[in-house]
């Protein structure tokens, strides 16, 4: 019986290649993610917060669910592929038991082979994609490994179990169907019902919903949380109705128009109108996933690029050095530099207020209207009299005590009020005009500071340390977010590829007729490219529009409208390249399938 299973694999190898490629991609993506999730050293060295592992667990569950759905779809495709053969076998006298055992063997052998190849592809993809992402994000990743034995085992077990479950499910379905249904599988026409007026009304509503969500997006700051929920509902509902109703309205209109009476436009329009009922859910999900992936990448990258600016705006100084071993003469464009003295006693750090009267201490305070920060120069007297104004000093004190919080600060009136019998130490505060231009020198200085005082970057004060901290936290999250976003999109795009290719039997007949009545091979290739281009293009265009308008919602986070598109360009290029590869691959396979 196993011999028969292998032989039937050979008889329909073209269709199986389609199935295989999809499965390999999904196994490879699963492996990639798992390799990252199981790479403790990588996670620990790149994320300061421990919650990061939770994000990973959630991510893995999500990926597991989406893989499960995907495999279900792939297996339905497999069953469809074999249904009429099974019908024939059944007619020739094979028992249901024999056939369903054959089906299970087939499913499992395909699954295991595809998973193994997928894992090998996963090795390559992991190292490739990580180097691309590292470059794209400018994140430094340490302890990154492409090959993880644990992940290989997890992927293999997970996929085998899923294939086993799917195989059993297919068996059940197969047993329920009679021979005739099996033989006549795939012979139904799904003709769209046209109700011109209703279609027009609903089509316009769909368009209005989507446009409405776009119009509200820039105003989210003023309409608050309820507004955000409203936008979300309008957008999701609008996306679905736009694809299911508005596009139907457009294809109806095209049928009547002179525009479609040229070349193969009417054919392409017919293809779309026949596909819509079947594809609307999938296209809507892809549009939303496209927007989420692109949006997450754009915001993440934009925010990542903003980190230096944000750090500079929240600290009045670039760095604090607690040792004179650090020479600040390696820094360029120093805008302000001052040495102060202090005394450490237990958890308390004493500063001499007179020093601040002489050389005022800069502090970042919110402007009166509250939206942005400005630098205020404080005297010792002011700090002593104004509760809360000593927080800049507290940050410095925590660095001096090498702790994240809890330091007490006392500003004395003058030198004589400082605690006696304890050594007076000095510290240098420095501010440079451009932190990024000084990044190397600042890193060098931080290194010396760490060697001398064992100062950890997460406890240090100043914009450089703040930048390093957020970069560490954010870089890790961002890397995972982008990875997941691309992974989901890749899988959804693969599903679209699958669905298109699994419907190729109907299309093949249509293209055969076209060829018989005088369509050249070149025209057929162009028509296939256009037909599939529209299918792939719909979710892409909606996704890109979603992000163009959606990014306006992030204006407050990104410190203003000017910065919202910082990360959009590079993210778009990255995602489009991936999407384009799927599209080209689909056109190529589809063209081959209809030729034969």
């Amino acid at each position, binding site marked *: 019986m196993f011999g028969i299973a292998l032989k039937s694999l050979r008889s329909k190898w073209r269709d199986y290649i389609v199935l295989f490629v999809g499965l390999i991609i999904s196994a490879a993506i699963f492996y990639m993610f798992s390799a990252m999730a199981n790479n403790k050293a990588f996670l620990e060295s790149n994320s300061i917060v421990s919650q990061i592992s939770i994000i990973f667990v959630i991510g893995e569950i999500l990926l597991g669910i989406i893989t499960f759905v995907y495999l279900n779809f792939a297996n339905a495709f497999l069953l469809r592929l074999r249904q009429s053969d099974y019908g024939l076998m059944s007619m020739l006298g094979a028992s249901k038991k024999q056939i369903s055992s054959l089906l299970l063997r087939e499913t499992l052998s395909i699954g295991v082979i595809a998973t193994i190849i997928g894992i090998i592809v996963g090795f390559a993809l992991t190292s490739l994609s990580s180097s691309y992402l590292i470059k794209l994000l400018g994140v430094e990743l340490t302890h990154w490994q492409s090959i993880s034995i644990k992940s290989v085992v997890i992927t293999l077990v997970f996929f085998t179990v899923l294939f086993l479950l799917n195989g059993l499910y297919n068996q059940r379905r197969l047993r329920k169907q009679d021979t005739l249904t099996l033989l006549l599988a795939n012979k139904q026409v799904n003709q769209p019902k046209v109700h011109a007026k209703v279609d027009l009304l609903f089509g316009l509503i769909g368009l209005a919903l989507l446009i409405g969500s776009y119009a509200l997006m820039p105003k989210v700051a003023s309409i608050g949380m309820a507004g955000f929920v409203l936008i979300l509902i309008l957008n999701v509902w609008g996306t679905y109705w736009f694809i299911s109703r508005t596009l139907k309205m457009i294809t109806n209109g095209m049928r009547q128009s002179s525009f479609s009476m040229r070349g193969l436009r009417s*054919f392409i329009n017919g293809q779309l109108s026949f596909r819509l009922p079947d594809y609307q859910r999938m296209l809507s999900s892809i549009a939303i996933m496209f927007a989420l992936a692109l949006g997450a990448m754009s915001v993440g990258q934009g925010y990542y690029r903003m980190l230096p600016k944000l750090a500079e705006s929240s600290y009045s100084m670039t760095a604090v050095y607690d040792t004179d071993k650090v020479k600040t003469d390696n820094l360029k464009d120093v805008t302000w530099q001052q040495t102060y003295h202090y005394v450490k006693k237990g958890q308390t750090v004493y500063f001499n207020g007179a020093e601040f009267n002489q050389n005022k201490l800069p502090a970042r305070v919110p402007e009166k209207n509250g939206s942005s920060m400005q630098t205020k120069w404080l005297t010792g007297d002011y700090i002593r009299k104004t509760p809360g104004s000593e927080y800049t000093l507290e940050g410095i004190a925590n660095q001096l005590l090498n702790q994240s919080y809890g330091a007490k600060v006392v500003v004395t009136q003058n030198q004589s009020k400082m605690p006696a019998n304890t050594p007076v130490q000095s510290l240098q505060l420095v501010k440079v005009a451009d932190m990024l231009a000084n990044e190397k020198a600042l890193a060098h200085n931080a290194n010396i500071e760490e060697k001398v005082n064992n100062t950890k970057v997460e406890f240090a004060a100043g914009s450089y340390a703040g930048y390093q901290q957020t970069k560490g936290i954010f870089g890790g999250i961002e890397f995972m977010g982008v990875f997941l976003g691309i992974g989901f999109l890749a899988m959804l795009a693969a599903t679209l590829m699958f669905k298109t290719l699994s419907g190729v039997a109907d299309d093949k007949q249509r293209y055969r007729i076209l060829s018989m009545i005088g369509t050249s091979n070149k025209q057929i290739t162009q028509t296939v490219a256009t037909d599939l281009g529209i299918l792939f293009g719909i979710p892409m265009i909606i996704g890109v529009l979603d992000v163009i308008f959606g990014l306006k919602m992030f204006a407050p986070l990104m410190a203003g409208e000017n910065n919202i598109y910082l990360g959009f360009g590079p993210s778009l290029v990255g995602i489009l390249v991936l999407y384009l590869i799927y599209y080209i691959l689909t056109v190529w396979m589809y063209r081959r399938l209809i030729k034969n």
Partner: protein
Amino acid sequence: MTESLLIANQLNKSYLSAAGVQQDVLHDLSFSVDKGEFVAIMGPSGSGKSTLLNILSTLMAPTSGTVTINNKDIWQLSDKEVSKFRGQDMGFIFQNYNLIDSLTVQENISLPLTLQKASVKKIKQAVQKVAQMLHIEEYLNKYPSELSGGQQQRVGAARALVHNPALIFGDEPTGALDSENAREMMNYLTNINANEGISIIMVTHDAFSASFASRILFLTDGEITKTINRDNQPREVFYQQVLSELGNFN
């Protein structure tokens, strides 16, 4: 003397069966069709008549031999030229209609013209004209799946005729029709043959349909074994002659 439109010269077609045995379907077959002629090809099933029609209409390549239409060897044409020939010079009425299920009747009929990038006005006029002639105007906005077999056959015929081809191939064009519809279809084909000078080559196993032709080729085991001409006989008389010829065959 009338001019030859189509010349088939020493056509051979053989398949390799699954067992690896070569099977000859057509054997050194030669004949010609004049401009404006209406030729029927008859023969028992398996005699190779559909294969012959597919080869004559560029849909299938012969193993050897040539087919010349309007002095051009159709098997020497490029992909583009073949498409142009199919799209402009010939029309094909299929036994199983071969309508595109995702297009309305109107769109199906328009296809040969939209492929030629004809003007919208010309397309509308031409579609209207053939639809009127074939009595399918009321179905123009329906899908093929909403029509009966006879109606679909007429739509197929409309598509084959809409672009005024010089030559029409028919593969059992009445195969799916009842006698009333079959008579109507054949009257229609006779009409366009007589009035518009369109040549017709038709494969059929039905003596009634064949009797509308001016010449009938009988095919047995891949060879033309008999040719009969209608000359000036009335159709009914010719029909009796065809029937008796078929009797001789059996």
